[in-house]
C-alpha cells in the first residue's frame, strides 16, 4: 500500500469546479443526427402502395390501407403504409427495400402525445411537423436489397440472326430464371394491368420454387396462349411493375416463357385436366386467332361443342400470319393450338364464312356465334401513285412469307410506318435480302420521332442492329415513278409536329424539307382494318355500330342476342387483349346458352 494510493483518489475533487455536461434543454437543443432513423416520411406522389415495406417489416408494424387522397389506378394500388410505432423498431428495412424510394425517415425522435393511438399513423397522409425534414435516414444509392437490374436474356447475335428466321431469344436457364424471379417482390400490382389478369406473382413464385407444373396450371387458368404470350406479349404488366421505378421491371414475359419451356408438351393436357361433361350446346366461332381460340378453349372446358371456322389453312390468326418466325416460331404457336384442339375444339380450315358457308346457316345450326375475325386487311396511304404495283401492304407480304408464297423480293425497300408491323416487315425483308442478295437495303420511314414510335423499343434496337435504316419524322407525300412507269422512290416531307395540344392527330410539315427515298418497292404498314363483308348486308344493317366497329356491351355481345364479337376487330391489335376478350365472351356465351 503506497502513500500514492491514499492520496490519488482525492484528485476527484478537481471536478468541483467543472461545469455540468448535461444538455439543459434536450427537447430543443438535441436534434437527431443527420442520418438518424426517426419518424417516417412518405412521398405519396412517388409511393405506389406495393406493400413491400409491409412484407419486409419483421415487427408486423406496417399495414397497407386505402387513403382518401389517392385513387387506385394502374401501377398504384391506392394503398399507403400506416405504421404502428408501438411495434416499429426503427430498423429502416422498409426504407431500404422501398421500391420507389418514397419512404424515408426524418431525424425527428422527440414527439410527445398523450394518446397512444396517435402513434399509429400514415406518413405523408397524416400531416406531421417533420414531413418536410431534409435530414434523417435516406437509403444510400448503392445500398440495394433488391437487385435493380434484370437478368440479361441471351440472344442470337446480329451476325448469326440476320440471314435466318430462327428464334432470336434463347430463353432463360433455370438458374437465370430463378434469379430473375427472386427480384419480384410479389406485390401483385401487375395483375390489374394485365388484360387477362394473369396471376403473375404466383407463377413467378412457381419459377422460384421450381414447381413448373403448378406454373403451367396457373398460366392456363387465364391464358391458353402462353407459348405466344411468353414470346410476343405486349407485356403491359411490366409497365406496372414495382421494380421499374428504381430499376428495370421484372422480365415477366420471359419468366412466363420459361415455365412453358420447362414442361414437355405432351404433359400439358394432363396438367390442365379434362373438360366438364358435355352440355349438348353448340357454339360457332369465326376466326381461329387468339380471341376465338381462347373463347373456344374456355367453352369446351365447360362441356360445350365448339366449331371454329378459319378462312386460312392454319390457325393462329395474326400470331401466325403477322408475327415473323424469328419472334414467334411456328412450333411454339402450334403447341398452344394443339393443346386447345386436344381439349376438343374443332377447327374447320380453309372455310370462309360468307363465301363458303353463309352466316345464316351458323345462326341456325348453333346456339351462339362469336365473331373474332381480327384485323386482316392493311390500310393504304392512298398518296399519289400509291396504287403502283410495287406498293404493298405489310400484312399482305407477311402473310405471303408465312404461307411460303412467292413474291418479288425488293432489292431496296422503303417501309411506311413506325409500329411493330413495320418492324416485322422491315426485319423480315432484311433477312430475305441477306439470304438472297447478300445485303440488307431497307429504309423505314415514319412520321413520329424515333423515341415515340409505337413499336417496342427492343424491336427498334434490333432492327437498327440488323442494318435497317430508320428515317423518322418523314411524312409520305407520294410515290415517285419514272417515265417508264417504274417505281423509283418515296417522297416525304419533314414532319415538324404530329399531335395537337389535345394529343389528336394534326401533323405540321416543312414542305421545303423534302426527301426522295430511292427504292424499288414501297411497303405500307400504317394500320389495319377488318373485312366485315361476311356479315352480309342484312345483318350489317341489323347490327348496331359504333364508329366503324360493331357495337358491343361490356361482355362483348352485339345488339343481336346470339352474336358476340371479340379480339382485334373490337379492340385493335394486341394478343393478350384478345385472349382477355376471349375469356370475357366465353363467360358471357356460357351464361347465355346455359340460362334455360
Amino acid at each position, binding site marked *: 500500500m503506497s502513500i500514492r494510493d491514499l492520496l490519488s483518489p482525492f484528485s476527484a475533487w478537481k471536478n468541483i469546479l467543472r461545469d455540468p455536461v448535461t444538455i439543459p434543454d434536450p427537447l430543443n437543443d438535441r436534434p437527431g443526427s443527420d442520418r438518424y432513423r426517426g419518424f417516417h416520411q412518405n412521398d405519396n406522389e412517388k409511393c405506389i402502395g406495393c406493400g413491400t415495406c409491409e412484407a419486409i417489416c419483421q415487427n408486423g408494424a406496417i399495414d397497407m390501407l386505402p387513403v382518401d387522397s389517392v385513387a387506385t389506378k394502374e401501377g398504384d394500388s391506392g394503398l399507403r403504409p400506416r405504421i404502428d410505432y408501438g411495434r416499429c423498431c426503427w430498423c429502416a428495412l422498409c426504407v431500404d427495400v422501398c421500391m420507389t424510394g418514397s419512404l424515408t425517415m426524418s431525424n425527428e425522435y422527440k414527439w410527445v402525445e398523450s394518446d397512444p393511438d396517435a402513434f399509429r399513423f400514415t406518413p405523408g397522409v397524416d400531416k406531421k411537423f417533420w414531413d418536410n425534414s431534409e435530414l434523417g435516414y435516406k437509403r444510400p444509392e448503392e445500398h440495394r436489397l433488391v437487385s435493380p437490374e434484370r437478368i440479361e436474356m441471351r440472344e442470337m447475335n446480329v451476325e448469326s440472326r440476320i440471314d435466318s428466321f430462327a428464334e432470336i431469344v434463347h430463353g432463360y436457364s433455370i438458374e437465370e430464371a430463378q434469379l430473375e424471379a427472386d427480384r419480384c417482390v410479389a406485390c401483385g400490382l401487375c395483375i390489374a394491368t394485365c388484360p387477362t389478369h394473369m396471376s403473375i406473382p404466383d407463377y413467378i413464385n412457381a419459377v422460384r420454387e421450381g414447381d413448373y407444373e403448378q406454373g403451367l396450371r396457373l398460366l392456363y387458368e387465364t391464358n391458353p396462349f402462353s407459348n405466344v404470350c411468353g414470346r410476343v406479349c405486349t407485356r403491359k404488366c411490366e409497365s406496372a411493375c414495382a421494380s421499374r421505378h428504381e430499376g428495370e421491371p421484372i422480365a415477366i414475359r420471359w419468366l412466363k416463357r420459361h415455365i412453358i419451356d420447362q414442361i414437355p408438351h405432351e404433359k400439358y393436357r394432363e396438367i390442365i385436366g379434362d373438360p366438364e361433361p358435355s352440355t349438348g350446346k353448340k357454339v360457332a366461332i369465326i376466326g381461329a386467332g387468339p380471341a376465338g381460340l381462347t373463347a373456344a378453349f374456355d367453352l369446351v372446358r365447360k362441356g360445350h361443342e365448339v366449331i371454329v371456322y378459319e378462312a386460312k389453312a392454319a390457325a393462329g390468326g395474326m400470331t401466325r400470319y403477322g408475327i415473323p418466325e424469328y419472334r414467334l416460331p411456328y412450333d411454339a404457336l402450334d403447341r398452344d393450338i394443339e393443346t386447345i384442339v386436344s381439349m376438343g375444339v374443332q377447327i374447320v380450315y380453309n372455310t370462309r364464312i360468307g363465301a363458303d358457308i353463309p352466316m345464316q346457316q351458323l345462326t341456325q345450326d348453333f346456339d351462339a356465334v362469336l365473331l373474332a375475325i381480327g*384485323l386482316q386487311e392493311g*390500310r*393504304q*396511304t*392512298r*398518296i*399519289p401513285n400509291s396504287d403502283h404495283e410495287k406498293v404493298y401492304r405489310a400484312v399482305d407480304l407477311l402473310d405471303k412469307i408465312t404461307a411460303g408464297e412467292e413474291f418479288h423480293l425488293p432489292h431496296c425497300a422503303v417501309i411506311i*410506318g413506325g*409500329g*411493330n*408491323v*413495320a418492324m416485322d416487315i422491315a426485319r423480315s425483308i432484311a433477312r430475305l435480302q441477306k439470304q438472297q442478295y447478300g445485303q440488307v437495303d431497307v429504309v423505314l420511314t415514319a412520321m413520329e420521332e424515333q423515341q415515340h414510335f*409505337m413499336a417496342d423499343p427492343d424491336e427498334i434496337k434490333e432492327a437498327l442492329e440488323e442494318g435497317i435504316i430508320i428515317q423518322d419524322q418523314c*411524312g*409520305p*407525300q*407520294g410515290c415517285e415513278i419514272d417515265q417508264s412507269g417504274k417505281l423509283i422512290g418515296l417522297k416525304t*416531307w419533314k414532319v415538324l409536329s404530329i399531335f*395537337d395540344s389535345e394529343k*389528336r*392527330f*394534326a*401533323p*405540321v*410539315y416543312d*414542305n421545303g424539307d423534302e426527301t426522295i427515298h430511292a427504292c424499288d418497292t414501297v411497303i405500307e*404498314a*400504317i*394500320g*389495319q*382494318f377488318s373485312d*366485315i363483308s361476311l356479315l352480309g348486308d342484312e345483318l*350489317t*344493317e341489323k*347490327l348496331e*355500330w*359504333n*364508329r*366503324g*366497329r*360493331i357495337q358491343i356491351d361490356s361482355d362483348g355481345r352485339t345488339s343481336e342476342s346470339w352474336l358476340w364479337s371479340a379480339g*382485334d376487330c373490337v379492340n*385493335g*391489335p*394486341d394478343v393478350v387483349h384478345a385472349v382477355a376478350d376471349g375469356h370475357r365472351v366465353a363467360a358471357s356465351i356460357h351464361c347465355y346458352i346455359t340460362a334455360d
Partner: protein
Amino acid sequence: MADSISGKEKLQACTTLREILEQATEFERTARDFYAELAPKVSKKIRYLLDELVIEEQAHYDLFTDLADKPEVAEQIKLEIMTPPNNKRFSDCIQLPELGDKPDDQSILQYALGREQAAMDQYNSLAESAPEGPIKDVFTFLAQEETEHKNELEKIYYEVVHSGGV
C-alpha cells in the same frame, strides 16, 4: 371539283356581305345534301362518318345563315379573324378519289378533306383578291372556318386509317 370553279365565279359576282354568305350557305347545303344522300348507300359500319359530316355541314349552314341575318356581323367577323387557325395540311389526303356507290371510310374522308381543302383554297384566294374592307374580312373568315373543319377531319382520318397505330 367541278362545281367549285363555278362556285368561285358565283362568289366573285357577289357584292354584299349578305350575298356572299348566302352563296357560301348554299355550298354548305349542297354538301350536306350530298352526304345525306350517300349515307344510306354505304355500309352501316361507316355510315357514322357521313352522319357526322351531315351534322358538320349543317352546323356551318346554320352558322352562315345566322351571320347573314345579323346586322353586327361585320364586327363579329373582324374579331374572329384576329386568330387565324394554322393550316395543318395533311397532304396524303389531297388526292380526290372518285366516290363510287360503295365508297369505303377512307375514301369518304379523303373526299370530304379534299372538299374542305378546295373550299379553303377558294375562300383564301377570294380574300386575297378582294379589296380591304368587310368583303375581304368575310372571305378570310370563311377560309378560316373551312380550315378548322379540315383540321378536324384530318384527326378523324388518322384515327380511322392508322387504326390502333400499328
